[in-house]
């Protein structure tokens, strides 16, 4: 621990750190701060997910990050032959990447669910759907958060 830091030094250091973080994010968006990328990899087993079929509905700007309505729906006939089995939703800017996993079955009829989530800051939300045939589909949305939902 440093013995003494005056205010100016502290500000300088943190501004530098912020600049580095921003630069890092711009250069490699894949390198998220939390475990969200790992969670997706674990969910898909390393397979690539195709864009499409998944619809992720969130407000563009969330005034209060404590309860943000989130709806996810996946195009699928939901029959025994072809259905969505699981949908993983992760956030790349929360302390923990995982948000929720929905488990559907042909008895669900429609692959659609809605809940309310916490968002700590402006960030990207990603949904990955697993079909019964082993293929994966994905969609992402950015949400701007005015007041964060963690710690309050």
């Amino acid at each position: 621990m440093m013995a003494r830091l005056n205010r100016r030094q502290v500000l300088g250091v943190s501004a530098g750190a912020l600049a580095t973080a921003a630069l890092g994010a711009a250069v490699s968006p894949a390198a998220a701060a939390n475990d969200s990328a790992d969670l997706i990899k674990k969910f898909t087993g390393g397979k690539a997910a195709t864009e499409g079929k998944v619809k992720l509905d969130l407000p563009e700007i969330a005034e209060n990050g404590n309860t943000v309505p989130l709806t996810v729906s996946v195009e699928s006939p939901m029959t025994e032959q072809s259905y969505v089995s699981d949908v993983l939703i992760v956030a790349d800017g929360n302390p923990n990447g995982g948000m929720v996993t929905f488990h559907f079955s042909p008895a669900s009829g429609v692959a659609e669910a809605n809940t309310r989530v916490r968002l700590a800051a402006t960030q990207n939300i990603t949904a990955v759907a697993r079909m019964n045939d082993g293929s994966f589909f994905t969609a992402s949305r950015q949400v701007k958060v005015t007041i964060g939902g963690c710690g309050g």
Partner: protein
Amino acid sequence: MATAIKPRIKLDKKEARKGDIVEVKALVQHVMENGQRKDAEGKTIPRKILNKFVCTVAGKQVFAADFETAISANPYIQFKFRAAESGPVVLTWTDDDGSTIVGEETITVT
């Protein structure tokens, strides 16, 4: 204490034809403590959330969800199922401490 929590459940229709899509909305009171917050003394408040939700209709699972700490307090969930047979619609939430909150409605399929 935990058993006193009564979830609020609403089906968009109580009677359905076979094959109809029924929408379920449910709200349950729970702090969903995320394990990040600190109390007045600066100690971390331990995590306590509902981590699992299951819905069965006439004994058959139609929908389930694994909640993480990112789910808001007093979790709300909305989903649909295809009416197949009459019976109880049972919603079960499981707490981190292993206790459960159960709510029940009935669907009549004609």
